[in-house]
């Protein structure tokens, strides 16, 4: 079994290698090869899963060290894997959703001449992501962490000829790098504190270290999570990342990669549990982001950006849950999984819509598509119901638990967090309804595209609809399945631990409140977009709307402070380098030259003045000699 873990990672890696180096020969077969290898990976995951189910709860973890990676003095980093229930969950999600999206991409990218490379990148992503969740130490996790960042960079910028895509890719990588900096500092802190950064020794002995150190580690890990999971303040890249092809948005920027932050926090639970201050920071980030993302999601007219706001917001929920400690870890992961299903489904639906609408992304130019794309409409609709938490569907179960747990945090903090989560649920209902209404209902507001061609919406090919249908099943049933008998809780508990929260409000009250806010949200959206016609160009809107359209001005802040400031800094440094650092040297050279020029004048060609110099020299010589004697 142990060897299969390595194969799990190796299969997509091999695919990436072959596809990227293979040359034109693989242009035709490449997509299918990539999909096949993703499926192989998934199959291996299932085998391992079956094997794991056959063992008792505590013995399920598998450890395997493949080889010594960097053995230097007291520093040892190995390439080793740790497969337990938590990673298993991720493996299945990643390979499962990943395979589906590979399949979807076969149709979606059919007409792209560089699709071979696209699948290579997708496989690369799968490999890196698997490495991330399977690593048995932080440094190897870091490799996967940056690896997914690279894949994300490559895929966001896949259509490189579009400057906006290239810029978005760069931005994503850079913002992620800031987070990565946090992760690497965290690893260094762990190393100096524990002398190692393997999960097992660190996590089992976490409490032996001082709280201050642990808080520092935890905060750095949080920074990393913020970068990867697009949490405030490092969330700005996610919206732009929608420049990438839609399957990418579905896989990387909705279902899997962006949830890596949640994985990191959950994985490092022992560290966070021993650093309450850091936990407070985590929940704050989560709460702020869930509202931030939701508000942004309300204002966007670009369907993918609206969904991206939603992703941010939903991950905010997860982070919030993870920050709650043992009462929340399981629910964070559960929401992560269900979110993986419905958000991927929603994105694939959006992709399907765009596919039929000549790549139009502005929802104000959609409308009334339900009859033209029935499968898309139904699967998207199920995803919609799941995300807003319609009773019985996946999102209902997972989100409800998080809101409950937030209240259970207790004290003022609990009320604030719970309130925020509830408010978030209302806004979610609002913006998702808005998306739904704008896209599938109302009159047609189709516009000709850049070439003046009117769109002819049509249902997508089978390769695209099948994954959507599968994901829709997940969106509908996953939550329910997980919640029956607390299956998911029992599955994960041996890894993450679990405590029952003691909520000041009963579970039933919370559910009721959730239902109420849901209805309110939907109702407002209906009032705004369902009952009256929607203008094709967006109205100016309130101050808040305008701010939300601009990602609550965060980008502007970044632009003014970081980009402009950075430009000024580099420009002035270039000047300093040229004039000051170089200037000192050149100045010295110039002054030697000047001195030389002046001394040269003494050599005026007159023999008599030479004689004067000699005479003076002799006088000085004599005087100096006498003086030496005198002293």
């Amino acid at each position: 079994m142990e060897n299969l873990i390595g194969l799990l990672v190796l299969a997509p890696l091999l695919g990436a290698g072959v596809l990227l180096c293979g040359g034109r020969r693989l242009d035709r077969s490449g997509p299918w090869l990539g999909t096949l290898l993703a499926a192989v990976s998934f199959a291996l995951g299932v085998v391992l899963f079956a094997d794991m189910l056959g063992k008792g709860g505590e013995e399920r973890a598998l450890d395997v060290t493949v080889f010594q990676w960097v053995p230097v003095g007291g520093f040892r980093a190995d390439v080793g894997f740790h497969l337990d229930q938590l990673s298993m969950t991720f493996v299945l999600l990643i390979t499962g959703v990943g395979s589906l999206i590979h399949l979807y991409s076969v149709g979606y990218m059919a007409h792209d001449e560089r699709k071979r490379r696209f699948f290579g990148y997708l496989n690369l992503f799968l490999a890196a992501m698997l490495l991330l969740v399977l690593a048995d130490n932080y440094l190897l996790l870091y490799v996967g962490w940056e690896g997914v960042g690279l894949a994300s960079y490559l895929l966001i910028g896949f259509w490189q000829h579009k400057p906006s895509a290239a810029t978005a890719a760069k931005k994503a990588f850079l913002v992620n790098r800031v987070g990565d900096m946090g992760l690497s500092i965290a690893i260094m802190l762990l190393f100096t504190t524990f002398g190692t950064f393997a999960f097992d020794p660190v996590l089992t002995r976490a409490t032996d270290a001082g709280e201050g150190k642990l808080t520092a580690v935890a905060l750095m890990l949080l920074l990393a999570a913020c970068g990867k999971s697009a949490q405030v303040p490092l969330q700005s890249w996610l919206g732009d990342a929608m420049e990438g092809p839609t399957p990418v948005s579905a896989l990387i920027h909705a279902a899997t990669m962006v949830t890596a932050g949640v994985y990191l926090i959950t994985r490092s639970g022992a560290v966070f549990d021993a650093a309450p201050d850091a936990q407070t920071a985590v929940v704050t980030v989560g709460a702020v982001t869930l509202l931030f993302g939701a508000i942004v999601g309300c204002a966007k007219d670009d369907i993918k950006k609206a969904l991206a706001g939603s992703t941010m917001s939903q991950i905010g929920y997860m982070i919030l849950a993870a920050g709650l400690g043992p009462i929340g870890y399981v629910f964070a992961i559960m929401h992560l999984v269900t979110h993986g299903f419905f958000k991927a489904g929603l994105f694939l639906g959006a992709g399907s819509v765009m596919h039929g609408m000549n790549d139009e992304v502005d929802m104000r130019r959609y409308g009334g598509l339900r009859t033209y794309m029935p499968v898309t409409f139904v699967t998207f609709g199920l995803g919609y119901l799941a995300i807003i938490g319609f009773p019985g569907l996946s999102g209902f179960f997972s989100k409800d638990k998080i809101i409950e747990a937030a209240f259970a945090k207790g004290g003022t903090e609990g009320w604030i967090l719970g309130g925020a989560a509830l408010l978030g649920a209302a806004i979610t209902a609002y913006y998702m309804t808005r998306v739904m209404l704008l896209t599938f209902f109302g009159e047609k507001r189709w516009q000709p595209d850049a070439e003046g061609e009117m769109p002819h919406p049509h249902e997508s090919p089978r390769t695209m609809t099948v994954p959507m249908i599968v994901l829709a099943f997940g969106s509908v049933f996953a939550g329910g399945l997980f919640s029956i008998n607390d299956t998911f809780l029992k599955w994960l508990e041996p890894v993450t631990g679990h405590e029952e929260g003691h909520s000041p409000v009963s579970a039933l009250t919370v559910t009721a409140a959730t239902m109420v806010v849901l209805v309110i949200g939907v109702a407002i959206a209906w009032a705004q977009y369902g009952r009256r016609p929607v203008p094709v160009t967006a109205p100016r809107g309130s101050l808040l709307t305008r701010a939300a359209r601009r990602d609550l001005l965060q980008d502007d802040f970044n632009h003014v402070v970081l980009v402009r400031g950075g430009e000024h800094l580099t420009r002035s440094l270039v000047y300093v380098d040229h004039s000051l650092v170089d200037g000192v040297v050149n100045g010295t050279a110039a002054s030697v030259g000047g001195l030389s020029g002046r001394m040269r004048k003494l050599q005026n060609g007159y023999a008599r003045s030479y004689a004067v110099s000699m005479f003076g020299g002799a006088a000085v010589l004599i005087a100096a000699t006498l003086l030496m004697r005198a002293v």
Partner: protein
Amino acid sequence: MNPVNYLYLAALLFTIGAAGVLIRRNAIVIFMCVELMLNACNLAFVTFARLHGNLDGQIIAFFTMVVAAAEVVVGLAIIVTIFRSRHSASVDDAGLLKL
């Protein structure tokens, strides 16, 4: 008379010669000033020989004279050559080589 006074005279002559080198423009005059300096040296040698009571100084004075004579030969030759090509014996006119 105290022989030391001859030394003072020698120093004076030497200084006059040196000053002449520095002041005068004509190469011949300068050269004569150098000769004056050499002769000042001779005077000093002779005086010292007298003071020390040995002959070395006096012998040296003869050597000096010979050397000075040789110097005159070479010096005058050079000065005359440059005078013929420049029609001037002023050292200040010979200023092509400079800087």
